[in-house]
């Protein structure tokens, strides 16, 4: 009893620097931004308490809805393309094209180790309408009529950003799924083969349920990062043209640091945090349900 108490205290002692760090650099700013979201503050003069005005304005703000819609689209695309696509690629690499697995893993690893800002700059050159790789390739293939001003055209700007995102994040998910697929015992595949399952069936009936736990955590990661995404959009389009590629983070940034509306920016940040948490919980809940019959037997 006594020893246990001492152990607990000792554990607390060792944890205290981390807790202190968290309190000062995470909890305090979070609470403070919560407080700020009820004020009108330009960053320099005195703060003015304005109650729920910021929240009321926010829910009437067309750019906020535009940004929100874009974040939801990113979340959906990241689940459909990045997460699901990564499972397919991981399966193909491990079970079907084993001999190129290492080579491809290396390719997929490249965007993971490069900073997002660099990837953004790289893509902005690829997309350049005049000397960019994409348009020049199209022209060389005789498809010059398809060449466009990718990032500057309101119809293509957001898809172009989404494409760069898929490129950036998919690699990491593939690496995680490859590890998960490799962990499935060979006997399971043998059993599937004996039962006459082809690759298609094996993938959906054997592999997906077996790696469901990995999918669950990766999906959670993908959804959360979709709602927090910033740097790629910032470098590629800065939310423009005319807000078509705006996401919550870039809108927050321009509201706070270009328009000097710190109070309103805090409101956006606060709502963004709530939404991210909520979406994360929903994803977990949904996946746990489907999981129940499939894997936990």
């Amino acid at each position, binding site marked *: 009893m006594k020893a246990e108490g*001492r152990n607990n*205290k*000792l554990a*607390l*002692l060792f944890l*205290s*620097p981390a807790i*202190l760090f968290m309190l*000062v650099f995470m909890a305090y700013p979070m609470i403070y931004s919560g407080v700020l979201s009820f004020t*009108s503050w*330009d*960053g*320099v*003069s005195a703060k003015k308490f304005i109650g729920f005005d910021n929240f009321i304005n926010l829910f009437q703000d067309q750019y906020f809805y535009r940004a929100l819609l874009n974040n939801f689209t990113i979340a959906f695309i990241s689940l459909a393309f990045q997460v699901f696509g990564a499972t397919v690629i991981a399966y193909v690499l491990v079970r079907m094209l084993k001999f190129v697995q290492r080579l491809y893993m290396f390719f997929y690893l490249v965007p993971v180790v490069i900073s997002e800002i660099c990837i953004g700059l790289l893509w*902005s050159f690829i*997309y*350049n*309408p*005049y*000397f960019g790789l994409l348009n020049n390739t199209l022209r060389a293939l005789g498809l010059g009529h398809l*060449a*466009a*001003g*990718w*990032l*500057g*055209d*309101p119809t293509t*700007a957001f898809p172009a950003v989404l494409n760069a995102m898929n490129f950036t994040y998919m690699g990491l998910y593939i690496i995680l799924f490859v590890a998960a697929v490799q962990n499935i015992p060979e006997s399971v595949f043998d059993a599937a083969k004996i039962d006459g399952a082809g690759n298609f069936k094996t993938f959906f009936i054997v592999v997906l349920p077996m790696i469901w736990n990995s999918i669950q955590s990766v999906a959670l990661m993908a959804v959360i990062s979709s709602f927090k995404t910033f740097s790629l959009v910032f470098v*590629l*389009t*800065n939310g*423009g*043209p*005319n*807000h*078509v590629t705006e996401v919550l983070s870039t809108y927050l940034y*321009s509201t706070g*640091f*270009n*328009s*000097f*509306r*710190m109070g309103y920016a805090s409101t956006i940040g606060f709502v963004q945090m709530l939404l991210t948490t909520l979406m994360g919980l929903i994803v977990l809940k949904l996946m746990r349900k489907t999981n129940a019959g499939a894997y936990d037997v």
Partner: protein
Amino acid sequence: MPKRLFFVVCTIALFVLFVFPCTGVNAQDAGAPITIWHAYAGQQDKVDFINYAIESFKEKYPEIQFEEVPMEHSSYKTKLNTAMAAGNPPDVFYTLPGGYLGAFVKGGQIYQLDDELAKDGWGDSFIPTALSSVQFDGKTYGVPIDIDAAAIWYNKKVFEEHQWSVPETEAEFDALCEEIKAAGLIPVALGNKDRWPATFYFQTASLRFNGPGMLGKYASEPESDLFKTAAVKPFEWLNKLATNGYLPIGFNGMSEAEANILFINGQAAMMVNGTWQIGMTNEADKEIFELGFFGFPKFEGGYGDQSDVVAGVAASFAISEKAENKEACILFLRHLTSMDVMKKYVEMRSTMVAVKDATSEDVAGPVLYEVTKNLIEKAASMDAFYDTIMAPLATETYYTVIQGVLDGTISATDAAARLDEALRVQE
């Protein structure tokens, strides 16, 4: 015993985290060094200039201790805003004039310089219109550094090759653009991702149609229609440029630097930009590129004087109200705006400066001197860059509607109404 140990460790941790940094700052009291923040990093001509200014200052005042914090221009505004918001501003710093500085002045963060400027004719050494960009309610809160003017720059080599001549009127300008298009080139290079480059188009068109001082009228004639009707024609002109294909494709997604590549490579014949364009094209290949300029064409039925120019102070320096060693800060600003340093600025950066007679022929180089003689001195009036004098929130709307009008997602009348509304909101 463990309880006491825990307590002691926590106290030490707290001490290290909170108390130590504070005492660190106080300990430097004796020398009272000054911190200087500026945005002259990244580009070589900027770095050369600030190094010259600081080295010569050190030579002149070896006893003054200071810390220099160089930053890139693109991230500078954010960093200064953050420092200001945190109540921890640098002592003397680079700042945009007009509305940006005005927000700090309103917050009581900037030291007033009128008494100092009255001494030894310091204030009189500046061009009066330039000084007005750092004045609020008749008081001066900074010193202006450089003056930029917007013009249409063109590649003389390309013009000579095709025997094109400089247009005088809007109709001639349109005809020229059609010819350039027919020759397979881009008429005007625009990279509007950062949103300010296209403001020159709007503002000059507005000058031609409405005359100068439109923003000032929001204070003096708040009841009248102003931009709600006056901005429609300039916006329509902007939209026409885009729909006629006079601008490169994807211009809203390209940066100014990318547009400059098109211009310098000879893929585009013209470029609308500030006088810093001279410095940006210094390194161009002389075989295919030679820089020339002309003023905006005359618009038929325009109310404004057709010689007016969009020009204003691009950068200034101010002193924080919290600065401990204000004398040293003032000495630095006096040194920075001295004739010698300002002439160096003109020479190194090919930009006009706010100090009288410093933009002389010997240091300015032929193109800049020609701009001063043929554009600035012949202008009936100058209108400062709207995005630097607008309040920050209105600036955001201004940028957004221009992007929208150019890509056709916002109509000219709608854009005019939104700009008008944004300028009326007092926040």
